[in-house]
């Protein structure tokens, strides 16, 4: 791909709500995190262990555990130590919850999804 074409692609893909773009680049920057954000949005009262959450989304627990930790560090989830167990819930912060809702609703649109996928892949390299 030539540099002009890359630039055009980048400009097209950047045509996205800046707040959501930042949300993707800084918080939902892997596909596992994407799955987790969708899961917690749909099941907002979930309180569980990494192994269980991995089962709920059908992913490898060894991969899910660090992703949950990263989401907690970025304020999307709330992490707690409970009698030696690490448990996760959706962060109670209203602003964050509204952002998650906007992200999940935006993902219903194919164009937005393609752009979001582009940014996740770009961030992985």
């Amino acid at each position, binding site marked *: 791909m030539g540099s002009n074409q890359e630039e055009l692609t980048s400009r097209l893909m950047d045509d996205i709500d800046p707040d959501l773009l930042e949300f993707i680049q800084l918080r939902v920057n892997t596909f596992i995190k994407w799955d987790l954000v969708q899961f917690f949005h749909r099941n907002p*009262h979930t309180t*569980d262990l990494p192994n269980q959450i991995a089962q709920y989304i059908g992913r490898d627990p060894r991969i899910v555990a660090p992703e949950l930790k990263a989401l907690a560090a970025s304020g999307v989830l709330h992490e707690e130590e409970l009698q030696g167990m690490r448990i996760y819930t959706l962060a109670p912060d209203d602003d964050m919850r509204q952002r998650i809702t906007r992200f999940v609703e935006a993902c219903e649109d194919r164009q937005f999804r393609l752009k979001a996928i582009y940014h996740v892949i770009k961030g992985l390299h």
Partner: protein
Amino acid sequence: MIPSIPNLPRLATGISGLDDMLQGGFLPRTANLIEGAPGTGKTTLGMQFIHHGIAADNEAGLILTFEEFPIHYYRDALGFGWDFQHYEKENHLRVVMTSPEVTLSDLQRLGGILEAHASQIGARRVLIDSISHFERISSDPVTLRTLVYQFINVLKRLGLTAVLTRENPALLGETPEDEEDLAFIADSYIMLRYVEIESALAKALLVLKQRGSNHARDIRQYQIGATGIVVQEPFEGAQGVMSGSPVMTMRDAFQKAFFASKNRPPEKS
């Protein structure tokens, strides 16, 4: 006859036939075990108890699920005309997905997450679906019984009246003896069974015990209809219903034989 605790309010399930059997419903702050095979309607009974509390008695409810996704409860409830998603939006209901080990540890501490859910909505009823998942914590029956006993006491401390579902792997027949241990801990014990009668499968319900209250002792047929569970009249003319394969009583067998021979068309000569 067992005397009932006088003038104590009851928490109706909203299942008319069952409430009659229970003398009006469950006693407050009790743990009520519903045990049955897959598809017998344990979760439906629990959901109906939660729905009735919200819709008829203005009592908020919690559902703790250890396996099913909340969306499945919303869908199944809506099938009966109960809008659980709306109840959640209005803060009358919380469907909490978690695991038994987290639940137990969380409830033991002060101001845990589940306690917060209960107090935020003022929950008075809870559905635990299902208590069978506690077997994940320990396979030792004594430890398991202690854990469940502790769990039930925490629910009572929170002022909740609980319906606990329990899976019975046998489609037809009675509960194996080693599976009956938890029934001693619960305040009431309701068995749901499939029964085969004249080559057709029906569903039967029996209130095996209700601590501190009288209750009906007959076996009732029930159906899961468009608006939930409907408990019907007692089974008549059959013995061994809860074993899954009832046999007719001697009298009924004679009656059937008599009428069958009387109604037999005359043989052609």
